[in-house]
Each structure stands twice: as C-alpha cells, then as structure tokens.
C-alpha cells in the first residue's frame, strides 16, 4: 500500500516529468521563428546551404525580424550562387541599416557577380563619398574592375592602396 506521503512525492515527480516534456515542446511551438533560425544557423555552419536557406526563409515567413537573419540569408544565397535572391536579402537589410558601409560593399560585390558592374561601381562610389580613401572600399573597387577586365584601372587603384607609384 502506498503511503499518502509517497503518493505526494510521486505526484510531484510526475508533474516535474510533465513539465520537462511539455516546456521544450511548447517553446518550439510558440517561438518557431527562433527555433528555425537556430536550426538554419546549424545548417549554415555545417555547410548545408540548401537546407540553411530553406530554414532562414521559413524563419522569415514566421515573422522573425532580425537583421542577422537577412544577412545570413543573403550570405547563403551568395554561396549557392543565387545572386538575385542574395541581392534581394541584402537590399532589404540595407533599408534597415542604411549606414552600414560594409554591407554596401557586400551589395556591390553581389551586383558584380550578377554581372551588374555599373551598379556595383555606383555603390562603391557612394561608399567612397561617405568614407573617402577607405582602403577596403578601394580594394573592392579594384576587384570589381579587374573582374570586368579593366586591368589598368584596377592596377592603378592597387598601387594607390599600397602607396606606391605605378
């Protein structure tokens, strides 16, 4: 025969088990976007970019509003060479973070990969207007020009970055 005290302890233990089982389940139901983002990050780190992109998009569709999500989504599409989709993500992010010049450089890089060199160079020009002489921007400008076969212009910029005469 179970004593009332033991019954009480059993009841406590049962309730605790129930809590342990239901809390994670409830959390994943309520915060699906966070869970999806976390899983997408894991896929990204494991180099499973197809799965990562799908999960980032799902997190976005669940209403997650986090600049990191858009940046990662753009990066993932970039790795998958889906440049239009990458541009879409980075442009949305650019609206949220208009002062982020590094993001603008990334946008220029994707434009260049998408064979939109004029747009890429225009973005770099705008960045250099805001931060004249910024070597990182100059280097990306040189890289974009070189990609387009404009070697001489690119070479001049490289010499400028290195502080040497051509």
């Amino acid at each position: 025969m179970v004593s009332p005290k033991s019954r009480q302890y059993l009841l406590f233990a049962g309730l605790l088990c129930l809590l342990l089982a239901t809390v994670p389940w409830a959390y994943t139901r309520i915060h699906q976007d966070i869970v999806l983002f976390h899983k997408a990050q894991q896929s990204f780190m494991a180099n499973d970019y197809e799965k990562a992109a799908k999960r980032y998009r799902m997190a976005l569709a669940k209403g997650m509003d986090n600049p990191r999500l858009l940046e990662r989504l753009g990066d993932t599409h970039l790795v998958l060479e889906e440049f239009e989709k990458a541009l879409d993500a980075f442009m949305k992010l650019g609206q949220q973070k208009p002062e982020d010049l590094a993001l603008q450089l990334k946008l220029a890089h994707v434009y260049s990969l998408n064979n939109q060199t004029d747009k890429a160079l225009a973005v770099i020009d705008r960045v250099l207007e805001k931060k004249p002489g910024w070597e990182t921007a100059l280097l990306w400008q040189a890289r974009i020009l070189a990609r387009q076969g404009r070697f001489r212009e690119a070479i001049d910029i490289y010499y400028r970055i290195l502080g040497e005469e051509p």
Partner: protein
Amino acid sequence: MKAAKISIFMSIAFIVLAWGAPGISFSFSHAPEDPKDAFLEDIPDWQARLELARLLSYTERYEDSAAQYKKLLEQKPGLVEARLELARVLYWKGDMVEAERIFSSVPEDELSAEARLEMADIYVARGEYEPAVEIYNRHLEKYPGDHKVRLKLAQVLSWKEDYEASAEAFRTILKKRPDDIQVRRKYAQVLIWSEQFDEAIKELEKTLTD
C-alpha cells in the same frame, strides 16, 4: 504547510525551466558560433599586393609583377602560392635560371589543390610530363567531374605519346560533354596520331554541321 509545499514545487519547477528551456539554451550555451564577416575585416597589404602582382602578370607586365611578388615574399616568406606564381611569371619573362631556383624551393606537400595544379602546369611548360600527369591524376581522383583538368591530362598524355590513355580521358569528357566540338576535334587529333584514321574521320564528321 500546503502553501510551503506549493512554493517548493514552484521553486523546483522554476529551476527546471531555467535550466532546460530551449530558448535559454539557444541563446547562450548551444548557439553556433557565427563566422566573422570577411567584409568587416581590414584587408592586409600583402593581400592587395598579391592581387596586384597577379593583375600585372595578366597584363604581361612581368617585370613589375615579379617585383611585387618579391616584395610580397619579403613580407610573407611562407606564402608558397606566391612563390609558385613568381616562378611562373619568371618562366614567362624568360628568366629560366631564377625561375628554376624558385620553383625547386617550393615544398609540394604544403601546396593547396589550386597551387598544385599550377605546379603541374609549370611541369608541362618545362616538358616534364610525368609529374604533371601524376598531379592531374591525383586531383581527378578527388574531383572526377573537373573536366578542365581532365582535358589538360588528356592533352599531356597525348604529348607523351600515351595515346591510349589520352583517348580514354577524351572519351570520359565526351561522355559528359558530347556537344563539345573543340574537345572532339582534339580527340580526333589523338586518334590520327595513333593511326586510327577511320575512327578519327567519324569523330571529325560529328563536329561538322553539314
């Protein structure tokens, strides 16, 4: 007494929740580390110099290119890719003695896959086909779908008069790229060299539209 029991239960439940709630664990302990963003990092001088040296070599400014590679190697003597690229530029420039000296100082086992292919190309330029074939074969074991390298292998094999192996490599490429006219013509050339004229004619006919 009853109230005390309830408060003990609530305390235990809180501890369990705080310890095990997935949200908390996501935020702190198990969140995967985000890689640093390359766009936010300052690009070092040596990287810019390496890119400049490459561009100068593309525009056939070998003298300037070699000068940049040498400056780079003073800064980063362990950069074996740069050493290899300098050797290649010196070959193009016609400075064979210096190129040989630098080329022989490159430790092959420290090279990246890309640099190894570069090394194979230099072996080919020197007319040393055997080590080049070895490098291409090792690369193709890892990347069997790299037709660009398989084409190089096929050509080098034909130059060392191993026509059978060369033709086999060409056939492997053509299985995947049956419409590549240039590859088929090169294959036909190998068939001609190996005196398989009928086969060569058939292959050449396939490359003609009329």
